[in-house]
């Protein structure tokens, strides 16, 4: 999604051909280490944008002996789409996080010590934070603004992750011995008419888990 609009924006700046778009995109995000796009992705995106009538091919002519190249430009509806994109907020995705899954797995499996797992992650995040801070302070604000802004963002996120760890640690301490989350088991086929008094499956508690 982001690449699509970045391409629209770069074509709004001036008409370009595919290869030029790729290097322009990488310059905008501060290098391919930050965000790499493959040529194939650029060309597929351009095709889709053309189908949607957001960009148009303006010229197939190469200069002199050069082979002809497809040059693209933004259409009126392309400008409108870009405007609409700028007018909208973006919802970040924080839910699918490996450490979150690791923590929950440790909780249900009883393998691994929760407090050690949290402390190991804390140490790891602090090392990342230290490296990001040192790296940011080594960049030049005039020629490397993309790097600085991205590192500011990483630093803030790492800070939030560290605060979240503190909260997680406190919450887990509070609920020691409480029942663990269990999947809801749905029987296949027709439900039986009588089950038990409550109908609940027996619950495993966290009492037995290693802490």
């Amino acid at each position, binding site marked *: 999604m982001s690449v699509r609009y970045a391409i629209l924006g770069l074509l709004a700046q001036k008409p370009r051909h595919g290869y030029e778009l790729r290097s322009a995109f990488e310059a905008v995000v501060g*290098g391919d280490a930050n965000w790499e796009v493959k040529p194939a992705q650029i060309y597929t995106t351009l095709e889709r944008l053309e189908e949607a009538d957001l960009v148009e091919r303006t010229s197939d002519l190469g200069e002199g002996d050069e082979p002809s190249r497809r040059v693209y430009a933004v259409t009126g509806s392309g400008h409108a789409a870009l405007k609409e994109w700028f007018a909208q907020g973006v919802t970040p995705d924080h839910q699918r996080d490996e450490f979150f899954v690791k923590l929950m797995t440790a909780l249900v499996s009883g393998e691994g010590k929760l407090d050690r797992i949290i402390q190991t992650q804390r*140490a790891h995040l602090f090392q990342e934070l230290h490296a990001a801070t040192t790296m940011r302070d080594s960049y030049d604000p005039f020629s490397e603004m993309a790097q600085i802004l991205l590192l500011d963002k990483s630093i803030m996120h790492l*800070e939030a992750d560290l605060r979240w760890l503190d909260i997680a640690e406190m919450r887990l301490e509070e609920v020691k011995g409480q029942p663990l989350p269990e999947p809801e088991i749905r029987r296949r086929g027709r439900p039986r008419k009588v089950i038990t008094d409550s109908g609940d499956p027996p619950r495993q508690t966290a009492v037995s888990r290693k802490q």
Partner: protein
Amino acid sequence: MSLIQTENLTKIYGSGETAVTALDHVGIQVKEGEFVAVMGPSGCGKSTLLHLLGGLDRPSEGGVSIDGTAIADMKDDDLTKLRRKRIGFVFQFYNLIPVLTAVENAALPVTLDGVKPAEARKRAAEWLERFGLGDRLNSRPDQLSGGQQQRVAVARALVAEPALILADEPTGNLDTRSGDEIASLLRQVTKEYGRTVVMVTHDPRIAAYADRIIFLKDGKVVDETQLERMGAAEKIANKMKEIGD
């Protein structure tokens, strides 16, 4: 070589049933030139630790050695001398004197110590210039931003040329950007000027400037994290290589 060493450092407030153990047999070492952050939830004993390190309070048990001298054995006069000559303090609320200029505030500790005003002023101005305040020497605190006032406070802490700086939430009253600048300045104080800094903070972003973090909980050291395990410089070099490929 260790500049600071504590052994079984314990502080209990009150007695009997109402006694509260703020520090519980803490043993830490801080090397010369090291930048150490102390973190932990509020009430974990981090400020108590800082006060004991600075000789502002006496331990209930155990002790602190600075430069190999146990401060528990010192007479009050010697302890005062140690605090004046070997230790500089930085607090959350700068504690500058409103009617004095930046350079007068920074010069104050050595002026009180009997150094001639002109000489004290010269030393203070040198530190202020190093911290980018060369053009604000004659500004009063209310004419300076929070970040600039805290830089004056760091200069004041350094003017007696102490080996150790103790900082208690030095960025607690600052916005993100100024907080980063002060943390970076404290790092510079250790790396460029060879001083040792122990800083208490609850802010992870600020703690990340240190070489090492000591985590306290319920008055005990629960963990320590060395931050430069993979050198930051090495990481940058790798990053550059990636970009070059």
